[in-house]
């Protein structure tokens, strides 16, 4: 939500190292950071405090794992979740950048509505703008893939279809959604 911009950032982790010279503090080991409705989890988080008090951070996951990011959208019972090997959060612009094996999910209440995967995903919370880059940015990177749930039945989970028509139930969570 918009209110997250000026909420305090608190972080738990196994260890913390603060560097005066670069004004950065590095948290390592089971890092859990919360700021208003924002929740971030990962193996290592490097946080910089800007002079005007705004905060920006880079969250990286353990090798083979992916860091996790979640934020509630303004005035809507919806959450934005994202995962990637590296997550860069820019407090001032309220923008998050997911890099490598990036995935962005939008949940309505508990149900997954849309989902996008690609190499690099940039999401601006305020405007709701997002962009996903596949091959072009990162040569050899995967293609962009997005799944957009149907509007009408988005709220309730898709009930089992009448068996007669299609034996496959439309997948509400496609492969790759790692918990």
């Amino acid at each position, binding site marked *: 939500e918009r209110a997250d911009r000026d909420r305090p950032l608190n972080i738990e982790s196994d260890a913390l190292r603060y560097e005066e010279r670069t004004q950065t503090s590095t948290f390592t080991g089971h890092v859990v950071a919360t700021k208003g409705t924002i929740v971030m989890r990962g193996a290592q988080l490097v946080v910089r405090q800007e002079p005007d008090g705004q905060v920006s951070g880079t969250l990286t996951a353990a090798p083979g794992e992916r860091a996790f990011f979640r934020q509630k*959208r303004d005035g809507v019972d919806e959450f934005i979740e994202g995962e990637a090997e590296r997550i860069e959060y820019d407090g001032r612009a309220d923008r998050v950048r997911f890099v490598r094996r990036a995935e962005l999910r*939008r949940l309505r209440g*508990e*149900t*997954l509505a*849309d989902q*996008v995967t*690609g190499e690099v995903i940039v999401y601006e919370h305020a*405007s*709701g*703008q*997002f*962009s*996903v*880059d*596949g*091959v*072009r*940015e990162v040569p050899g990177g995967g*293609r*962009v*893939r*997005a*799944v*957009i*749930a*149907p*509007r*009408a*039945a988005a709220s309730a*989970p*898709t009930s089992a*279809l*009448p*068996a*007669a*028509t*299609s*034996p*496959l*139930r*439309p*997948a*509400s*969570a496609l492969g790759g959604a790692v918990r």
Partner: protein
Amino acid sequence: QSESEPAPALRPSEALAEPISAEARRQAPTFLFGDGLHGQIDGESVLEGDAMLRRVDTVIRAERLRYDRATNTVRAEGDVRLNRYGNVYRGPELELHLDDGSGFFTQPSFSFLKNGGYGEAARAEFIDDHRSQVHDVRYSTCRRNGPEWLPDWVLRAARIDIDNEAEEGRAHGGVLEFKGVPILPVPGFAFPLGDQRRSGFLPPTLDLDSVGGFTYAQPYYLNLAPNYDATLTPTLMSRRGVAVGGEFRYLAPVASGQVLGNLMPSDRLRGRDRWGLSTQHQATLAAGTGLSLNLNRVSDADYWRDFTRGIPALTPRLLPADGRLSWSQGAWSAQWRSLKWQTLQTPDAPIIPPYDRLPQLTARYGLSPSRGWQYTLDADYSRFRADATRTLQPNAERSVLSAQIGYTWLTPGSFLTPTLRTNHTHYAFDAPLVDGRTRATRSLPTFSLDGGLIFERDTAYFGRAVRQTLEPRALYVYTPYRDQQALPVYDTAAKDFNLDSIFSDNPYVGSDRIADENLLTLGLVSRLYDADNGGELVRLGLAQRLRFSSQKVTLPGETPIDERLSDILVGGSLQWSPRWRADAGLQFNPKTGRSLRTTLGARYSPGNYRVLSAGYRLKNGISEQLDMGWQWPLNDLWNDPGLDLGPGRGLGAGRWYSVGRLNFSVMEHKLVDAILGFEYDAGCWIGRVVFDRLQSGAASSSSRIMFQLELVGFSRLGSNPLKTLRDNIPRYQYLREPAPPPSRFSNYD
């Protein structure tokens, strides 16, 4: 998804879901792929770089795709390719509303899955999921197989309305061109997009006929309703005038049938009106009651000569008008039948007409289980009518009552069946016989004892494991002598002497003659079954009769049979591999050393569109016929076997096929019936030329050459040269059968 719900489990299904219900369609997600994607969470997303959108059965590919989730609309630019239930559209720019399927496509080229149709147009307007309008269009089923699209035939139209659900295209302001030559200026014209029945023109046929001169027949098919349709075929004959042929077919839950008619007012050949009618009708009335009609009538005795193959009756010169009302209930069955023949007499080959049955009432009570007691009771009242000046016999009413009782001991390896039968026949003649009698009765019993064994062994022949059976059989028949020489013959004739008829207790079929018998028939049959699939590979049979007293009862004009040993019967069939089979039957007279009845037949069909069959049939003194039929691709001659596309699809484009049938009457040294045809399959059209010659008298014959152009997938099959080929050439296969529509997954992106 919440944990409480069971994970979605896949259920085995035999087929992928072809039709998608509206419910499934509305709930389906939309998948987007591309090199780059940017957009607004609730608004429009723009996909770039080999972008693709997939939703249920619609796939769109393009350089750039703009998908607005609010209106569920897609705008695609740059080498757009749309695949909708297998139909593929390509062009520079597309707009499509995914909910109702409406939108447009600029300069599209399109190809339909169902019939392989291809077209190019200025613009396509999608009305909904199934209907669209294509403007300034060229359409054909000739595929594009090069940079340039040069179809052999093409339909140019200002507009074509396409309805994929009804599988129909309707051209407006169109002209049909074949190799650049307009052949059918077609203002408003409907054509099929699938193989659903469709009203419309069928391919015309042109004939050069020795009797009718130049003939042009243009059939028109009327799909009146799902369960009845009609085909009208006006025919122009240069030397004779105009004829109209009609065929009406109907299929209802309780009744079905067809009516075939042909009308030719003032045929210049005979200077009179000509008509021919043939109706078949079957209906099931109340429980167990059925009505069947088979009425065939023609206007005059020369009809069979002038309209060859015109009437579907089996015998061109003998046309039955046959009505039967039959009832059956468990062991009881009864039938009322009225049968009247129209015999087409010709001065040079008169026919002694068979008797009409006006009417015939039959009833039967019969229980014949395969083992234990069997008994049948048969009653038959017939009123025989015919032209006495030709039959030289009085007409009569005949009543027959026959009762039969038997018992069968049956084990898998043996059977024994003694049977006792009594037959009482009463005649009432319209005119006195030679000896003055106007009534006659005959009753006599028959005793028969039929027994046989079945031996088996597993062995191998030519390296193939087989199970061989050896089946000896014996039949003893005793029937006392009753003088029947003076009795006229109404429905009786000698059975063909073969392995089936030798094991019966009366050499005559029909009730007017019951031969005095005191004979023993011995037979031996051996069969070879394939060890692993049980198919019958070989069957050989041998039988002969020992007569203990001579047979005095004969048909008029025959002499009593004194030989103690009958002719030897040999018969067999051979199907060692599914590719070919042979049948043979021989009735060999040991004294004269000559065969009285020989039937030889063989058929070789190694694959689709390849069949060669030949038959030789001799009935001593009556007929000797040689019959040959074939359908073979000519390309095989320069060993280009073509592709195996499955039955009903031909063997690939650019191929010649030869088709033919020769029926030669050896005794009369004449080629009685000759058909020779060539078919050229160009892939999207088939050209056909068929030469057909039918002997219609000692010195006269009618021959004709038929041409036909068939536009595959455009004008439906079904005109007469094909019917001639199908009826006369054994196992003739159409080059295009209406195949079940290909699944939308066969053209999957």
